[in-house]
């Protein structure tokens, strides 16, 4: 829509209830600014690039350190859950149904008499797998499509913009319900596939915007004037400068994909038992929430901490990359 002086970020729309997929979308637009000290009096002579500056900031930011540690821990337990939890998440004893904390079960037992601690630890694998793979898929597909559309413009760009409009018009949770309700495979792949299918327009829009901004920079124009090839321009000059907003939005989106997986499992269309997932456990615990709140609160807590860690990480990265907010 070239007639609009501003593009109001409609990225936020299309958000379903549990799956607020676009926290930083609006906020990330301010990223393509060059750093500069207040009063223009930063230490002179020292070269300061956006990335080295950001990294220096991040190392000193407690929010970044804490969230990065939480994420490392999550990755660790999803690779080797048995390192901190003994027994199988599927070994349940109905006699212990809804029991409180006991030896070997610090979080108590759920309605099926399963060890909530063990299940919570093993549930991390599902969440991390879905989050990481969905984000990777969305980022790659979105950046490539959005980046190319932004770089070349023309008919392809217009078509892609309309296509993203179409996807934004469909609420995410609703799309998930419709697409996943027929899936019988009880693995993470359909869930990931659905997220990539409905999630790429968000990244594509961000990537397109930042490529267009980067393309208009003077040094890129200069490279063009010097006869740089398209591929060289894209890879050497534009991509490094356009990638920051994508990284920020993708990090935050990762957290929301994890929440979305749980929401879909709660609605009964994500993973189903005997798979182990926080969403399944929360859903299963909800009918007897009054008698055994621990069975609901521990997986919910784990889920919230995980989502929070990714949001905070994305926030910290954004703050580090955005000199304006310093």
């Amino acid at each position, binding site marked *: 829509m070239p007639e609009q002086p501003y593009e109001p970020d409609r990225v936020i729309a299309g958000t379903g209830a549990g799956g607020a997929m676009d926290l930083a979308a609006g906020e990330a637009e301010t990223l393509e600014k060059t750093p500069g*000290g*207040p*009063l*223009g*009096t*930063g*230490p*002179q002579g020292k070269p300061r690039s956006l990335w080295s500056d950001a990294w220096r900031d991040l190392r000193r930011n407690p929010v970044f350190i804490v969230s990065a540690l939480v994420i490392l821990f999550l990755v660790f337990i999803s690779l080797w859950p048995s390192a901190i939890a003994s027994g199988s998440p599927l070994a349940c004893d109905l006699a212990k149904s809804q029991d409180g904390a006991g030896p070997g079960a610090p979080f108590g037992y759920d309605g099926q008499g399963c060890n909530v601690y063990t299940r919570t630890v093993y549930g991390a694998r599902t969440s991390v797998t879905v989050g990481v793979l969905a984000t990777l898929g969305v980022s790659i597909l979105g950046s490539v499509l959005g980046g190319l559309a932004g770089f070349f413009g023309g008919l392809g760009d217009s078509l892609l913009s309309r296509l993203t409009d179409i996807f934004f018009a469909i609420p995410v949770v609703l799309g998930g319900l419709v697409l996943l309700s027929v899936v019988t495979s009880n693995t993470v792949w359909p869930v990931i596939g659905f997220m990539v299918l409905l999630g790429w327009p968000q990244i594509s829009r961000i990537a397109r915007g930042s490529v267009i901004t980067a393309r208009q920079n003077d040094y890129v124009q200069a490279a063009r004037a010097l006869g740089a090839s398209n591929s060289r321009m894209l890879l050497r000059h534009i991509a490094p400068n356009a990638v920051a907003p994508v990284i920020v939005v993708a990090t935050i989106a990762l957290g929301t994909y994890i929440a979305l997986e749980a929401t879909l499992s709660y609605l009964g269309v994500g993973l189903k038992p005997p798979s182990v997932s926080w969403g399944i456990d929360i859903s299963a615990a909800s009918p007897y929430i009054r008698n055994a709140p621990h069975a609901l609160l521990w997986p919910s807590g784990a889920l919230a901490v995980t989502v929070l860690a990714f949001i905070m990480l994305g926030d910290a990265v954004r703050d580090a990359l955005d000199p304006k907010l*310093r």
Partner: protein
Amino acid sequence: MLLDVRDLHVEFRTRDGVARAVNGVSYSVDAGETLAVLGESGSGKSVTAQAVMGILDSPPGRITGGEILFQGQDLLTLKEEERRKVRGARMAMIFQDALSALNPVLSVGDQLGEMFEVHRGMSRKDARARAVELMDRVRIPGAAQRVRDYPHQFSGGMRQRIMIAMALALEPALIIADEPTTALDVTVQAQVMDLLAELQREYRMGLILITHDLGVVADVADRIAVMYAGRIVETAPVHDIYKAPAHPYTRGLLDSIPRLDQKGQELYAIKGLPPNLMHIPAGCAFHPRCPMARDECRTDEPPLHEVSAERGSACHFWRECLDERTR
């Protein structure tokens, strides 16, 4: 004395350290007088003005010492509410870029009228009428119709007239104009400057004109204060300075004005860059760039020497500087 700034110190605390933006500035302005404050960006001329106005960004800005006597009253000891009533009513400010300094979503009539509503308790309707008068006063054509327009609908020169009208609204005793014509086309610059000078004479206001344009200064200023690295390095009546500067920095500024009689010659430029305010050089802050620097300039900070009754120069060798004028 209308305004008397004494030994003002301002610093900015940032992530990278403390920037000493103003280091012991003293200047004064009388009713009807125009003081031009000259200096490069980062010399502290705008920060001093913001401190006087009470609109310093704080944090990170902080006034760490000095007095600002305005009509006999030390503004720095006033409560915020009393200070607020001084702003706009008794002293007003004109900003450099009227497009960003005016609120984009309010009509100019609203923004002008607001002065009367807030400070004089007028009704919206009366305030609107006064806004039209003001726009007439600064010679905006078709004021009655244009009062409803938004800032972006005016040309640059007209916008700056609106800024002037806003500053004049309550006939303040002092106006601070921070680079009022820098953002304008050269042809418009003169018109706006003439208007400002004319209104100043008419209302007998004190005017502090902050600028880096020596050409503007020669026409309208009575006195000049030259600032460098947060200090005043030279202060003098305007004609004395043009005739014979008493500080090498002032001389550098004057020599870097293109002149018709030097056509074809290389234009002079002061070598080097303004200092980093976090690491101001010891001794005379100007010594790394000064053509006449000697050993003592690197260690001893020069005080403001009295050159004559009305002149001061912060150079150890101000006499030599005056003599070299005939080089």
